[in-house]
């Protein structure tokens, strides 16, 4: 029951993901970091098939880094999102990656942005996005309480409300969550929300 969600605020974007690594009924670990720092100003929260998740996210991260080494300039969030979508689309009808991604980035010219990328290569630029069973609760909560240009505190409060809903209403709710933020100063870990220590 993996869960990833995100939202855009005033000058920043937030990505929240659960941190459980599960195999059938066994929880391998509850401190798995599923939000990869793609480059200095991009975050990529990924959920789905564990092997595909690691493979695809690392592949994208290395290609983004290669672009920067070759061309001396970083990719914009939009370009990275479209590159990812293209890779998923190319693999889709042969050997699909079962990974869902929420991509958050900050560009100097265009500010913060959030992209919803499905495992079947759907791409949408959005203000709020969520994947997994938790999305039923997170999206409803965000639909009710989200407004544009929220401050960091307001956004964190909304994220907490979403986490609370997931914890109380989802039958096999993940125990711990990680929150990461990206703004003009870069992408970094914000905080954890734990119920178990691992």
């Amino acid at each position, binding site marked *: 029951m993996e869960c990833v969600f995100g939202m855009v605020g005033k000058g920043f974007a937030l990505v929240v993901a659960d941190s459980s690594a599960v195999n059938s009924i066994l929880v391998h670990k509850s401190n798995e970091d599923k939000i990869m720092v793609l480059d200095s100003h991009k975050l990529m929260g990924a959920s789905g098939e564990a092997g595909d998740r690691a493979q695809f996210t690392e592949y994208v991260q290395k290609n983004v880094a290669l672009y920067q080494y070759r*061309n001396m*300039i970083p*990719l*914009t969030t*939009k*370009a990275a999102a*479209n*590159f990812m979508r*293209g890779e998923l689309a190319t693999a889709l009808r042969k050997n699909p990656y079962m990974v869902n991604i929420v991509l958050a980035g900050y560009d100097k*010219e265009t500010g913060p942005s959030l992209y919803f990328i499905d495992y079947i290569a759907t791409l949408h630029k959005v203000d709020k996005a969520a994947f997994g069973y938790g999305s039923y609760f997170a999206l409803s909560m965000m639909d009710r309480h989200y407004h544009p240009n929220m401050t960091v505190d307001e956004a964190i409060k909304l994220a907490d409300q979403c986490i609370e809903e997931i914890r109380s209403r989802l039958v096999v709710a993940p125990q711990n969550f990680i929150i990461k933020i990206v703004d003009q100063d870069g992408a970094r870990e914000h905080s954890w929300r734990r119920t178990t220590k691992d």
Partner: protein
Amino acid sequence: MLGCYSRMVEAGSFVDHSSLRSIQVAGFFWFFTSQSQHFFFLFKMSRRYDSRTTIFSPEGRLYQVEYAMEAIGNAGSAIGILSKDGVVLVGEKKVTSKLLQTSTSTEKMYKIDDHIACAVAGIMSDANILINTARVQAQRYTFSYQEPMPVEQLVQSLCDTKQGYTQFGGLRPFGVSFLFAGWDKNYGFQLYMSDPSGNYGGWKAAAIGANNQAAQSMLKQDYKDDISREEAVQLALKVLSKTMDSTSLTSDKLELAEVFLSSSGKVKYQVCTPDALSKMLVKYGVTQPPAEA
């Protein structure tokens, strides 16, 4: 036998692949005959290294690449000038028959993408292949990233293609030089020059084709860093008129194109109409105004 073989390779300069094979057959006696051949070939050493593009000469030159550049030196010239609000490309047309359909096609200037254009000097059929390659590369980038391809990346990519023809495959290099003019959000207006070797450089002003040395030195004298687009047009026309072979300059012998930002902020590539070009030539004193009847 082995001793002679190694001697041959050491003496090196006049031994090519076929000679080495014949050593293995003829053996010892080859050594003596080759000594006299060496004397005979001393003046025409380069002739042995022309035939294949993908080998170095003993002086470390790639003759096919240099011959390609010679071919371009006989072609119609083109000049590019970078100004603070645009890039200007001017080309000399070699084919000026009245019978030519000039309304739609251009001889020297080509649009690669909405934000990149190029001027060409050299073998036109070679140029067409490369222009198509450049267009495909630009679209492929936009397909992947949904953004226009940065100008330098396009030039680099095309030059990598050209370099391939100097290192493997056994095919001759392309006999074309390009002047690329474009705009992107990283570096604004840019001008690049590339040649058959696959080398490229970013320039403030550059010339390719016939008399490019003379044009380049003239540009060096008169170019100023804060030149405006209009001044750049004037400078380009002036320099071209001085370096062109023909006695009088008329609008049907030239092509002028500009890359600039329109008022809405979009990149525009505009080829000057012959009428507007004639007026400009008169205005800048490059041609005499038609005598009043």
